[in-house]
């Protein structure tokens, strides 16, 4: 047994390590690949696996958003964007990739440093479990009568906030679709391009 873990905890820790390892491998592969189609496919796999990780962490609603948006919609949007550009990325000289690597490593180190101050997982005295959270947990069954508290907060207590977010997402989707030109326009453009080549 690894120090401090036993039984189900050990299993969950192993699953977390495994899924994060897979994410790491895919991330490195995405950074090194040049074929844009492969990158789009791998980013779909990336969000699918991170959605699984969210399920394993018991954040089911986040996981579902990640699966629907990351693996579903954004794959399609990236494919649409890819049709308008080249199919392969230009190779990057090694000297220019040093600074991004340093920035990523520094950010990661800062995040790891920040986790030291976080309360332990499931700590009853943590801020999330002491102030407003308990209030929502007590009131929701009488006031809203929805079994899932997160749903009650999102759709009822913060209903206007969610409505505004929906408007923002709708506008963003509209702008992206206008830019990429799904449908008739992109289709005829592709045909015309093929005719010109002949």
């Amino acid at each position, binding site marked *: 047994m690894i120090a401090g873990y036993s039984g*189900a905890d050990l*299993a*969950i820790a192993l*699953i977390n390590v*495994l899924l994060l390892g*897979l994410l790491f*491998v*895919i991330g490195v*592969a995405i950074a090194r690949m040049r*074929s844009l*189609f*492969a990158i789009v*496919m*791998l980013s*779909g*796999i990336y969000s*699918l*696996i991170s*959605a*699984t990780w969210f*399920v*394993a962490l018991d954040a*089911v609603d986040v*996981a*579902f958003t990640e*699966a*629907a948006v990351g*693996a*579903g919609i954004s*794959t*399609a949007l990236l*494919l*649409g964007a890819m*049709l308008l550009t080249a*199919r392969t990325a230009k190779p990057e000289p090694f000297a220019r990739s040093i600074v991004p690597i340093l920035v990523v490593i520094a950010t990661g180190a800062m995040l790891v440093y920040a986790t030291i101050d976080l309360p332990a997982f499931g700590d009853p005295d943590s801020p999330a479990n002491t102030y407003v959270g308990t209030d929502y947990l007590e009131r929701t069954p009488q006031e809203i009568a929805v079994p899932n508290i997160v749903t009650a907060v999102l759709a009822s207590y913060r209903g206007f906030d969610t409505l505004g977010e929906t408007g923002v997402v709708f506008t963003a989707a509209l702008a992206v679709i206008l830019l990429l030109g*799904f*449908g*008739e326009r*992109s*289709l005829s453009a*592709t*045909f015309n391009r*093929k005719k010109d080549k002949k």
Partner: protein
Amino acid sequence: MTEIAAVAIIIAIGLTLIRALMGPTLYDRVLAVNSLGTKIVLFIGFLGFVLGRPDWLDIAVLYALINFVSTIAILKFFRYRSFQVPLHRRPVPKAPTVQGRDNV
């Protein structure tokens, strides 16, 4: 028994991931993504069973649906170059490539 199931699913995920990383043609990668989605569904179902959360099966079924729809979307996109297939079907020029080797 559960250990064997876990190891089997993890090996399967690893194999499909290798195919997605190496896969020479477009369709290898599409198939790899699709079958990896199936493995993820199995994995979530397995996880729900082991951790005593049988309601995760619903999530797994929804993932299967998303996986199916997105695979269809990708393939349709590469057939018609568009999500909106015209109502009157124009003759789409056939790609002059060897089968299974789309030039992407």
